[in-house]
Structures are given as C-alpha cells and as structure tokens.
C-alpha cells in the first residue's frame, strides 16, 4: 500500500483543523487547547501540538494528514512533522492583514517542500475578503520561487469536494515527481 504524509500548515484561523476534519475517514485526533489570544483570533480553541486524520485514495493509497499549530511559538512541532512529510498544503485566510506576506512567510518556513514543488496553496475565507485574488498569490509565489510551480486554489475548508481537489492535486504532483525520479535513476 502506497502512503503519503501531507502537512497542513498556515496561520491560526486559516482552517487547517477544519480541513482535516472534512477530509478524514477516521475520527480526527486533535490537540486543542483553550485559546487565550482571542483578541488576535476570535476562536475558542487552538491546536497546540497536531491534528491527525487519514484518507484512502483509490483502492490502496493511504494519505496521512497532519495539521501543525499555526502559531510560530510552536515551530518545534513544525520541525518534527516536516521531517516526515512528502507534501504540504498551506492554508491562508484571505482576511488576514497582508495575507500574501503571511503566505510567503509560511512557505519560507517549509522551504524544502516548496522548492521541491511539493506544496499547494489554499486561500480560505474569500467570502469575507475577496482580495487579494488567487492570481495575486500565484504571482507573488512565482516571483519568490522562480521556476517552481505552486498551484493556488480558492477553498472553503468545510467543503469536502474542494478540499479533495486540493489534496488530489498535491498527491498527483508527488506521484509524477516520483515517476520522473524513477526514470532518471
């Protein structure tokens, strides 16, 4: 059985936990704690270690979904989890101040995955803030990582069809890269 480990990264409130909940076939393992920074992001709880879910693609391809805490003070968890990840879905809430800069900052923290083309970006909360557009993100990412293709989607993390499309895009990218590497070797 083929297996992929995919990370969900991005700032607090972007929808990482919701996205994994939406996609997972098993009951999600969560590590939520009371959020004492409600003046920054108004939600009752926040992820402090990881979220974990699983989904099977096709007949025998298992994808392990790990969500990392959004806050930088938990970046030791980023280091632990990115070592085992094959790909990354970055979720960015479009209503964040300077959302494109936030996206670039998170991409930089996971630079190895980004530079190997193993990343996809999902822009959430576009119902709250229409701009910047996905094209604006794509342009900024292309400028920061010339020659690297990072697909950008507009997503609602609660929507299973949309999140599945994002995930399958990433898995297809990883598989095509593996095929190329096999041919080369």
């Amino acid at each position: 059985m083929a297996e992929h480990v995919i990370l969900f990264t991005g700032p607090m409130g972007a929808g990482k936990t919701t996205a994994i909940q939406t996609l997972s076939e098993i009951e999600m393992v969560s590590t939520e704690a009371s959020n004492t920074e409600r003046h920054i992001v108004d939600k009752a709880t926040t992820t402090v270690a990881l979220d974990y879910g699983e989904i099977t693609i096709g007949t025998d391809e298992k994808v392990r979904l790990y969500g990392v805490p959004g806050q930088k003070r938990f970046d030791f968890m980023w280091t632990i989890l990115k070592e085992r990840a094959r790909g990354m879905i970055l979720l960015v809430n479009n209503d964040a101040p300077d959302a494109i800069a936030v996206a670039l900052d998170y991409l930089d923290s996971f630079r190895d995955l980004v530079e190997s083309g193993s990343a996809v970006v999902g822009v959430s909360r576009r119902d709250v803030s229409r701009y910047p557009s996905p094209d604006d993100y794509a342009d900024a990412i292309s400028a920061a990582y010339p020659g690297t293709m990072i697909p950008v989607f507009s997503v609602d993390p609660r929507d299973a069809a949309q999140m599945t499309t994002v995930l399958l895009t990433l898995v297809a990218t990883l598989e095509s890269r593996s095929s190329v590497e096999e041919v080369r070797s």
Partner: protein
Amino acid sequence: MTAIHRELRAIEIGDAALAEMRELAPSLVFAMIVTDDGFELAHAPQNTIDGGRFGSMTSSVQALSEAVTRELHIGSSGYVVIAAENGHVLQLRVPGHPLILAALFDNYETLGKALSISRRCVEKLAVDLPDTGPTIHP
C-alpha cells in the same frame, strides 16, 4: 474577560506557589505555570531557561498526552513524566483551571518526592486561584 496569565493577582499566587515549591525541593531546577495554550503565568527561578519555548512545549506535550488517553479510553491524564539522564520533567494540570504546572528536577530527587511536591503545588493553586469559569478540554 482578561486572560488568567495577565491577571496580577493570579500571577502573584503563581509566584508564591512556585517559591514554596522551591523551598520544599532544592533539586527543583525550573518550574513554570502556563495556560493550556502555552502562555506563562509564573516561573521560577528567573533567567535560567527560555520560558517561552518551554511553555509552548509544555502545552504541546500535555495536549498530546491527553489525546493518547482519549484515544485509548483510559480516563483523564494524571501527570506526565519525561525521565532523562540528567533530570526529569513532571507535568500536571491545575484542577479546575486552564493551567498546567511543568517542573524540571535534577537527579538528586526521587520521582516520588518530585511528584508529591508538584501535586501539593497544583492543589494549592486550585484553591488559591480565582475562578476562571469552565475550562475547555476537547
């Protein structure tokens, strides 16, 4: 409502509880009281360890231990021990409050005494701290 780690009275109570803990256990290298999401209420002694990072790690470890107990249906997590070559870390929840005590002891303390002193500290905090309303432990 002000977050508990920003309330002066709560910080004073935390400082006093940690000072008493140090008197009881000379082997206590560092102790910290943090919110569920890793923000510091109090720590002792000063200027020894990067409290911000230790606080965040405490929050993650506590949440992971509670995720394991939930997954295995073995009831609530009593305490967490990290036993290392040159010391051990103990973590306990403060009953009734969204707070965790994390304490690093050197090897000159038995685990039993360290646990007993840590329990005494969180029980005292539970009584002395102002009510913070219901806590959320998913």
